[in-house]
């Protein structure tokens, strides 16, 4: 009996030990952010979610992957309105050239390697907003209302016509939202109310397809003779001829996890087309390209978005085409509106997932970073870029938590190869030898394309460069001439504003801003000079900043209604680079204030400012001391000294700073001079319309910068000397206390004292 008790005791003790350590097993499998290029089946929506976080290592070693090629569209193509696969297997697109204001139908018989381009003849000039390519090679081009329409035969002859859309409400006309041809040549149109019609372009008649659907359709894709449409409750495949809905629960749930709004003007979070097999559907989103067999319970991921350009969140999708089971085309446009056509061909010899991995870390995601990843991925199909974002909208963790997680990874030897240093304690990282010197790399880019030397110079420490911003902006005073004359300091600017206010107490002198927006903009304008030589913060300058912010905020009392209408609803982009200066100009245009301080971050911003000034006068000048002006760095990059993929990391950074990547977006001025020249070259002219507070219409024509204006801008960019104070901890403390102060909680002096107490503590650590 006693032996038995002892034996039980022994077993229990061992079991406890075993159970205690059972949790220690490393179950972490995922190293990568993608499923690899090999096909992978996912169960319903849950499966889909899992597919974007799959194992890099699990698939490692397999063969076969879709490889991406970006096709060059004919040079006259500024916009693509539609694309379609013809019955002879060739591809046609409808393009538009802005300068000649001409429409083209372009055809390729070799999957985009060469194009035949035909100008659409014989049509009256009207604004074409919708178009579709017919399977026989013909096309239809329509104005937004269907009132003006041109039908083009495969031979190129054009016939004018119109479509009689039902459902006009009062004076408000119904509009065509989208158009497409089914495989049997039936024209399908979707109106603004979400109703799908079969249309006869010749007769000008339409017939409603979705009579038995109570929901409105957001948009659709064509799959053979079916329509795949997205509605509020999900995705439905409908027979275009009969209007019969083909029930498929897995397909219906495809959009359930979409974070983006499902409706969109010319751009859709999901694209649908027919698969190569009968009754199959292909859909595309930023996670990749997926195959679904009708009636099946799985969605098969054929292409992992993370490995190709599909993963670029700045890419707007327009149309997907299936050529055969191993070839797909995806049409979209980048953040600058430039059309992009990608071809995906299955390569059975390519490894299923890239054999190497490059880890890139950023606290916050950005268009610039995503473009750099897509660019690098295209150049290096054998390297998988694993992007880790510390702060996402979904998990609610703080920057502090994210940085501590990053510290843990670095200490465990799992740190990233490339770091986007915005918000990261750079000084501490440099001091501890985390970051590698990349001066030679920066100089290579400088030799190839040229860099803004003044920006580069600001980052040289003891002959080394550990950090380099890829983009930047700068603060300006924008407004009437008197305001611009007071550009040298916050105090001078406020003197101007107070003087103006005292002479006309009822007027709004400064353009409106939220407390947080104002504090950020003034921080960008003023903080570069706050650090003393010993590294501490200048308490007097900090107090002066808070005092100025408070006076600025209190000077014009905007009513809550004005504030809600004009400020909250206006797009102030506070986190990233956003061109608050052009917003200042826009406010002036609608008669809300005479001047303001804001950031300029793109050639487009400058175009808009000049457009406003051309109409109502005024000017803009860099804010601050003339010979010591500051810039706002954005997407600063560094390479981990301990990186196991050092060469790949260097190639990535070189790509990020290189011309192509820097040209691709306008999220800040590029540090690359060649890219800056491209930005100047790519300027577009357009019109902005809005209404003033009194209800009258206001609008400006945005023009390409004149040579003189471009030279002025270049001089301004070259005159910037030093970065603003980018220490995240200090910035957060300042903004946090500043908001309290502007809200009436204590004086600027008290707020400055509180900030200084905390900053002293921080700096003494």
């Amino acid at each position, binding site marked *: 009996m006693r032996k038995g008790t*002892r034996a039980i*005791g*022994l077993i229990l*003790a*061992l079991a*406890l*030990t075993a159970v*205690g*350590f059972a949790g*220690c097993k490393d179950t972490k499998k995922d190293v990568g952010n993608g499923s690899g290029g090999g096909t992978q089946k996912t169960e319903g929506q849950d499966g889909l979610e899992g597919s974007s976080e799959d194992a890099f290592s699990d698939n490692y070693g397999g063969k076969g992957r879709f490889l991406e090629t970006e096709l060059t569209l004919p040079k006259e193509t500024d916009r693509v309105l539609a694309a379609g696969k013809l019955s002879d297997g060739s591809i046609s697109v409808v393009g538009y050239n802005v300068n000649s204001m001409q429409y083209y139908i372009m055809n390729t018989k070799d999957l985009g390697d060469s194009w035949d381009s035909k100008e659409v003849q014989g049509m009256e000039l009207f604004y074409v907003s919708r178009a579709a390519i017919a399977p026989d090679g013909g096309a239809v081009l329509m104005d937004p209302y269907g009132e003006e329409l041109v039908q083009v035969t495969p031979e190129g002859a054009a016939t004018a016509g119109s479509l009689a859309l039902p459902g006009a409400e009062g004076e408000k006309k119904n509009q065509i939202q989208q158009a497409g041809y089914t495989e049997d040549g039936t024209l399908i149109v979707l109106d603004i109310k979400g109703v799908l019609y079969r249309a006869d372009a010749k007769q000008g008649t339409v017939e409603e397809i979705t009579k038995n659907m109570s929901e409105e359709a957001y948009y659709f894709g064509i799959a053979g003779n079916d329509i795949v449409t997205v509605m509020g409750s999900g995705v439905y495949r409908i027979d275009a001829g009969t209007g019969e809905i083909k029930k498929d629960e897995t397909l219906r749930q495809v959009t359930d996890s979409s974070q983006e709004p499902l409706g969109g003007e010319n751009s859709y979070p999901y694209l649908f087309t027919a698969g190569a097999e009968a009754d199959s559907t292909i859909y595309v989103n930023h996670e990749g390209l997926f195959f679904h067999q009708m009636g099946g319970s799985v969605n098969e991921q054929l292409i992992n978005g993370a490995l190709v350009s599909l993963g670029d969140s700045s890419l707007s999708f327009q149309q997907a085409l299936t050529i055969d089971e191993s070839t797909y085309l995806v049409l979209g446009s980048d953040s600058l509106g430039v059309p992009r056509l990608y071809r995906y061909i299955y390569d059975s010899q390519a490894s299923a997932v890239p054999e190497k991995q490059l880890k890139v870390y950023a606290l916050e995601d950005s268009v610039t970073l995503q473009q750099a990843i897509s660019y690098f991925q295209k150049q290096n199909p054998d390297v998988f870029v694993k992007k880790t974002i510390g702060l996402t909208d979904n998990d609610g963790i703080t920057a*502090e938590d994210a*940085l*501590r997680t990053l*510290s843990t990874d*670095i*200490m465990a030897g799992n740190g990233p190869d490339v770091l986007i240093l915005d918000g990261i*304690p750079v000084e*501490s*990282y440099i001091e*501890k*030898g*985390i970051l590698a010197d990349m001066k030679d790399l920066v100089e290579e880019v400088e030799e190839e394309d040229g860099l803004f030397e003044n920006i580069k110079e600001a980052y040289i420490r003891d002959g080394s460069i550990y950090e380099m911003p890829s983009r930047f902006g700068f603060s300006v005073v924008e407004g009437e001439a008197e305001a611009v004359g007071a550009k040298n300091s916050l105090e001078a600017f406020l003197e101007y504003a107070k003087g103006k206010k005292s002479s006309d107490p009822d007027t709004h002198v400064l353009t409106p801003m939220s407390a947080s927006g104002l504090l950020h903009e003034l921080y960008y304008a003023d903080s570069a000079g706050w650090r003393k030589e010993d590294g501490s913060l200048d308490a007097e300058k900090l107090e002066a900043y808070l005092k100025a912010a408070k006076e600025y905020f209190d000077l014009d009392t905007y009513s809550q209604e004005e504030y809600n209408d004009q400020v909250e609803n206006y797009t102030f982009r506070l986190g990233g680079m956003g061109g608050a200066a052009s917003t200042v100009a826009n406010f002036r245009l609608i008669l809300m204030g005479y001047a303001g301080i804001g950031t300029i971050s793109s050639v487009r911003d400058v175009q808009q400012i000049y457009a406003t000034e051309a109409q109502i006068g005024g000017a803009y000048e860099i804010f601050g001391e003339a010979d010591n002006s500051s810039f706002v760095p954005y997407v600063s990059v560094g390479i981990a000294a*301990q990186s196991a993929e050092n060469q790949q990391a260097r190639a990535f950074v070189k790509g990020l700073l290189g011309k192509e990547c820097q040209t691709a977006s306008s999220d800040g001025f590029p540090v690359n001079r060649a890219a800056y020249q491209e930005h100047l070259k790519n300027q577009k002219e357009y019109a902005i319309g809005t209404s003033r507070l009194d209800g009258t219409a206001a609008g400006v024509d945005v023009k390409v910068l004149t040579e003189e204006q471009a030279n002025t801008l270049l001089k301004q960019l070259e005159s910037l000397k030093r970065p603003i104070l980018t220490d995240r*901890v200090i910035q957060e*403390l300042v903004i946090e206390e500043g908001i309290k102060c502007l809200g009436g*909680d*204590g004086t600027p002096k008290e707020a400055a004292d*509180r900030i200084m*107490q*905390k*900053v002293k*503590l*921080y700096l*003494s*650590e």
Partner: protein
Amino acid sequence: MGWKKYTGWLFLLPGFLGVSVFYLIPFLDVVRRSFTQAVGGKFVGLANYQMIFGNQAFLMAAKNTLRFAAVCLPLLLVISLGIAVLLQKLEAWSGFLKGAYLIPLAIPAASVVLLWKLLFDGRGILNGILTAAGQSGIDWMNTGASFGVLVFSYIWKNLGYDVVLWIAGLSMVPKQVYEAARVDGAGEWRCFFYITLPGIRPAAFTIVVISFLNSFKVFREAYLVAGNYPQDDIYLLQHLFQNWFRELSVDKMASGAVTMAAVIFFLVCLLQKSWDQK
């Protein structure tokens, strides 16, 4: 027969292995890191210790942490013992009151923080009462008053726990001793000083050590209310360690942690020695 003498060890094994893997071995790694550079692992001797003893933030945090323990511990121990003794006498309500005192322990830190903010904000309930009474409000969290707030919070949260521990200790003193003393004419105070206090001495050691260690947990509330950089008086060692970790200052963090562990170990040994001598 041979197995019998190892049975006790076998039962200790799971716990010991757990403590070793999750605490002792990592701590040994921390000790190692306290003599090396933050990154790269180069041996630097006592440089990290020299660095932290010259670091103003560390000195301030260490001073505040010790000051906090020195103020809170006696207060908590005395108040909780007093309540425990009273509760033991209040037989009718003792069960309910014991439960009531334990409620703060069950309240999540996040809820406590909300309460703190309602009470101690510049425009909070306390200042509202002060203003209504004709007094000027106090900036509770940005002046020296924040230390008092932290002490109050610690005592409020841990009082019930200590009361229960004291009651357990008090129950170990035989009732017959009190009865005999009262027959001999001893009053309440005499009973307390000559019977209760000596009787609970064995339990007191454990309660002091537990309360001391619990005093380090007050950081959670301080952090959630005032963030990484609170008012100087409530800036504790844990704030500093968190911030050092964020900045990847593992060298400073390791030497600071070893120093702190050494001080705690020394104080506990000192306490035990003084207990043993009595």
